[in-house]
């Protein structure tokens, strides 16, 4: 492992509240300039973990190392780490420029350099015209930009983003995600962000760490976590999924509703759950020649604009969701018979949930 790969490294990190583990034995390495997303439902410990990185939460056990330096006992105000808070926490009594300058003043920088740095930061987030405004005079998106400028001003070794888009409405969110991602890439900063929104994690991050009950259950690039989920929880949290249970006949075949469907890496003779994404299922209007497709009936169709989600009932299995693209003509009518199958790589064998 090169020095850059373990730029931020957490070892056996733990924190509990009143005996209840909020963060339990987390091991994680984040590379220099990497954007890493901690993804999970509320209460999974992701925010606690972030606050431990910032120094706002005590560490019960384990260690945090950043750029070779152990941070454990450094108070928040001495760490080379800055955080963008969820509701931004801009100082209401200070102007935009003074908010950005606040952290610089604590460094003992002289006034001329502070002014230059504040200007540079406000330019980066395109807020130069609003330097004299007070936070309450800004829109949500503008407040977010100021908060970002403020947390970047001190050139932290590690930037923390706590639910960066939570306070924005949906329309603005997509735009700000793109802007934020571009800024983070352009300045090559190492960043850990926390979110409960899988789309946000997937669009913003180089790697995702999926958290459940205080533990990291899966870590990897977005495509990998989405395509190769390890557990039912991971499969379901990243997007819509069909979870199908059957006995594996061989490493490559699983018996579902009397048919043998392709998969990979199953243990023969064992009751196995496979995860199949709705968009990975191939839908046939007549029985394929190989004779091993699932035969079902269309129960409903949900129109989503760019695609449709069909509900297909197959005897002996839970109802399946199948995503099909294309026009209404190609959509099989409700009540018609359809045949479903998939490629071996698309049926992922899951581990039992821990």
């Amino acid at each position: 492992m090169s020095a850059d790969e373990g730029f931020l490294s957490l070892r056996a990190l733990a924190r509990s509240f009143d005996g209840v583990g909020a963060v339990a034995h987390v091991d994680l390495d984040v590379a220099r300039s990497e954007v890493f997303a901690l993804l999970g439902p509320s209460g999974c410990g992701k925010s606690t973990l972030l606050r431990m990185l910032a120094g706002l939460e005590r560490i019960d056990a384990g260690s945090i190392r950043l750029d070779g330096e152990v941070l454990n006992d450094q108070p928040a105000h001495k760490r080379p780490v800055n955080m963008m808070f969820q509701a931004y926490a801009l100082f209401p009594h200070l102007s935009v420029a003074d908010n950005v300058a606040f952290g610089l003043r604590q460094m003992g920088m002289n006034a001329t350099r502070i002014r230059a740095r504040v200007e540079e930061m406000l330019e980066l987030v395109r807020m130069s015209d609003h330097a004299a405004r007070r936070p309450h005079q800004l829109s949500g998106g503008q407040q977010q930009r100021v908060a970002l400028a403020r947390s970047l001003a001190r050139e932290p070794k590690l930037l923390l983003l706590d639910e960066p888009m939570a306070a924005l409405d949906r329309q603005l969110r997509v735009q700000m995600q793109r802007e934020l991602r571009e800024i983070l890439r352009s300045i090559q900063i190492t960043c850990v962000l926390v979110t409960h929104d899988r789309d946000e994690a997937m669009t913003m991050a180089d790697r995702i760490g999926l958290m459940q009950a205080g533990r990291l259950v899966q870590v990897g690039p977005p495509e990998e976590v989405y395509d190769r989920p390890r557990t039912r929880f991971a499969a379901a949290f990243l997007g819509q999924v069909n979870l199908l249970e059957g006995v594996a006949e061989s490493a490559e075949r699983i018996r579902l509703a009397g048919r043998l469907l392709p998969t990979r890496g199953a243990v023969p003779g064992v009751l196995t759950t496979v995860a199949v994404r709705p968009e990975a299922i191939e839908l046939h209007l007549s029985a394929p020649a190989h004779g091993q497709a699932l035969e079902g009936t269309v129960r409903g169709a949900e129109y989503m604009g760019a695609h449709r989600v069909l509900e297909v009932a197959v005897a002996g299995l839970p109802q399946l969701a199948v995503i099909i693209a294309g026009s209404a003509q190609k959509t099989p009518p409700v009540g018609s018979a359809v045949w479903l199958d998939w490629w071996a790589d698309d049926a992922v064998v899951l581990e039992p949930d821990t």
Partner: protein
Amino acid sequence: MKGGDATRPWGRWLVIGIPLVWLTLFFLLPFGIVLKISLSQGALAIPPFQPWFGMEDQWLNATLANFRFLLTDNLYAAAYLNSLKIAAVATFACLLMGFPLALGIARAAPRWQAVLLLLVIVPSWTSFLIRVYAWMGILGNTGVINTLLLWLGLIDQPVVMLRTDFAVYVGIVYAYLPFMVLPLYATLVRIEPALLEAAADLGAGPATVFLRIVLPLAAGGILAGCMLVFIPAIGEFVIPELLGGADTLMIGKVLWQEFFNNRAWPLASAVAVVLLGLLLAPLWLFHHQQARSMALHR
């Protein structure tokens, strides 16, 4: 629709009108009378001043003589200044004691906050006069403190505390501390904890967080608390009368003496009018700050 429009102003007039009538009848009108008396000449009569429209030669008996008299005798200026000094020092002492108290309550667990606030207010449920008398029992030469210190052998002679300025300060700080704590608490509890964390995250140590974030954001509460203590403390009469010495000069006492002992109603009224004039400046400042902080918080 029309009925709704017609009834709404009625309700509004009622809501504004009742306090307006109340204030006019029981504040503005009496003050007008006081102002009128302050411009009258004293007389050996009941009431002890001359009417404005006398039977004699002058057709208007109004005079500024009472105000002029306030300037001639140094007693009044000294009493005003001493009142200002005592009120200012007591206000500052209240702030020093009240701020940590309010901060502690604001930072306490939510279920404790109501209880702690109640403890601040509970003493006010007893008569003010009785509580001041209680301090006579505490501070006196045979009072609780001196008895304890003598018993412990720390002193041979009782320390004279009662009938000194010190006792007046103790009394004012004790009596007005809740008026400092409550507005301070109200502003401190509204400061988002995330702001303090953000300041720490940006490199500010605890002292800087306090000076740069907590104090400025609590400014409205500090000013409100100081006004609520300072303004009534200036005119305070009961505390200096009961706890202060004969030489404790406060304008409230002077006013009382002019009115009841000397039966100089016009002069007493003039003293009151000037006192009100002195208080207009801090009141205006307070109002100005309130308007500003309201604009800041939308």
